[in-house]
């Protein structure tokens, strides 16, 4: 029973386009979001600030070569773009994941981890491990007969499912941390008001909404309770489709308010919300003649990029 549910959850067959569209949208969005990223400034920061995290502990100190960082970030942005369009796909995805880990992780080694960039890195790693370049690629258009299709397969479902799961777990973790560190007292009007008012001095919020809403005890209380409930609902939302929609809308609205009231912008999380949109339906409404392709006949880690001609593999068995 559990095994069957596990299989159904992670491995229900999907089309190659289902996963490929996540690659196109995800890498395309990340390319646009991180286009202004410039890590070269960290080479000017004193080693006294170097507080490495995660795999960065293997480095003795901060990077000192601004030109090298400049080259790496240009390479990363190019790899994000080529991943999105599917040019030299496997190499592009691996480069995007590896350089994304380094360039997005580097600033977190200088005193504080910002939790904005963790999920995009996880998404890039998952895509690099998957067969997301089996459809909708420039490589495919250049190399193969456009009539050749691949069949629906379990290999195209689990990467999207895993990315969606990790995205929702981000919010569940945030809700759980509030209860673990603050207890039920976190959900009081006093606490919420202190967060809103305190950020007026310590950050630069784009509006004075925090100060305005803090005048209402009722609103502060409501926001505190709603925040924890919406964040904790992310766990059951993994399994209940109707709740998932409500939770995602609630989380999105919450992050918009955080941006307006606290000046903390979760822009990279847009790619997480995009994972839940029915891109395949949009794609098929734009190109109604396209149809579910047939699955490739080689394992997902294979370097082969050619496809078996259209056939019904199940009937062959």
């Amino acid at each position, binding site marked *: 029973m559990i095994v069957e549910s596990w299989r159904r959850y992670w491995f229900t067959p999907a089309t190659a386009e289902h996963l490929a569209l996540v690659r196109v949208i995800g890498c395309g969005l990340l390319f646009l979001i991180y286009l202004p990223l410039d890590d070269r400034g960290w080479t000017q920061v004193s080693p006294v600030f170097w507080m490495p995290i995660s795999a960065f502990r293997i480095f003795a100190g901060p990077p000192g070569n601004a030109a090298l960082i400049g080259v790496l970030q240009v390479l990363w942005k190019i790899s994000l773009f080529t991943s999105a369009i599917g040019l030299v796909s496997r190499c592009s995805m691996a480069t995007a994941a590896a350089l994304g880990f380094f360039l997005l992780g580097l600033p977190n080694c200088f005193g*504080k981890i910002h939790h904005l960039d963790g999920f995009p890195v996880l998404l890039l790693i998952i895509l690099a491990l998957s067969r997301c370049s089996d459809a909708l690629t420039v490589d495919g258009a250049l190399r193969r007969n456009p009539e050749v299709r691949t069949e629906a397969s379990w290999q195209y479902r689990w990467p999207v499912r895993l990315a969606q799961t990790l995205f929702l777990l981000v919010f569940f973790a945030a809700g759980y941390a509030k209860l673990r560190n603050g207890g039920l007292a976190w959900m009081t009007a006093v606490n919420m008001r202190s967060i809103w008012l305190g950020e007026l001095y310590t950050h630069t919020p784009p509006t004075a909404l925090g100060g305005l809403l803090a005048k209402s005890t009722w609103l502060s209380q409501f926001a505190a309770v709603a925040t924890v409930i919406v964040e904790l609902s992310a766990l059951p939302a993994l399994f209940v489709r109707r709740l998932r929609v409500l939770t995602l809308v609630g989380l999105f609205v919450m992050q918009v308010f955080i941006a307006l009231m606290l000046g903390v912008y979760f822009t990279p999380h847009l790619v997480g919300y995009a994972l839940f949109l029915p891109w395949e339906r949009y794609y098929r409404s734009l190109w109604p003649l396209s149809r579910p392709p047939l699955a490739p006949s080689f394992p997902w880690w294979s370097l082969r990029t050619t496809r078996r001609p259209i056939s019904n593999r199940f009937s062959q068995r």
Partner: protein
Amino acid sequence: MTWGARQSGGHFAQVIEMESNKNCVGWRLANLAILGFLAVACIDTLTGLEHWPFGSYPMYSLLYSEQRSWLRLYGLTDRGEVLLRGERDFAPFDEARLVMALERLQSADGGKQKLDEALRNLMRLYDRRQARGLPLRALRLYAVRWVLRPGLESFQPPQERILVAQATRDDAEAGR
């Protein structure tokens, strides 16, 4: 069989079974990847540890009092002290990261020396962007405190301000 008809529940189980049998190693690796990602995510969530890019996402999870204590950097110029902000004056630092880093240095072993070194470096970072600001004679780090109450505006000065560390122009040039 049409794609719509294939989506009936029984057929899915059959299809998954057939597919996984065909590609046993890939199937196992996929399960391993899923379990690995979920395990680290769950461990970090439950324990509060951080294994970036995973994490426990503890932002704003503490209880906040009606007083807010913070560190602030002021520059001493010919016109007196001016408030300096992370994003604007000390790029690539942003305000939150800079203050957290300074707090960690302050509480570390040899915190005084580390803070002095940090301020000298921040002065040099400021100088790189000096075209937009006034030249600094010194950089001062203060611990500041506000009593929070509705109706306060963000530009209001702190109720308390204590000098923590200071770096002068000579210090910064000596450490260059």
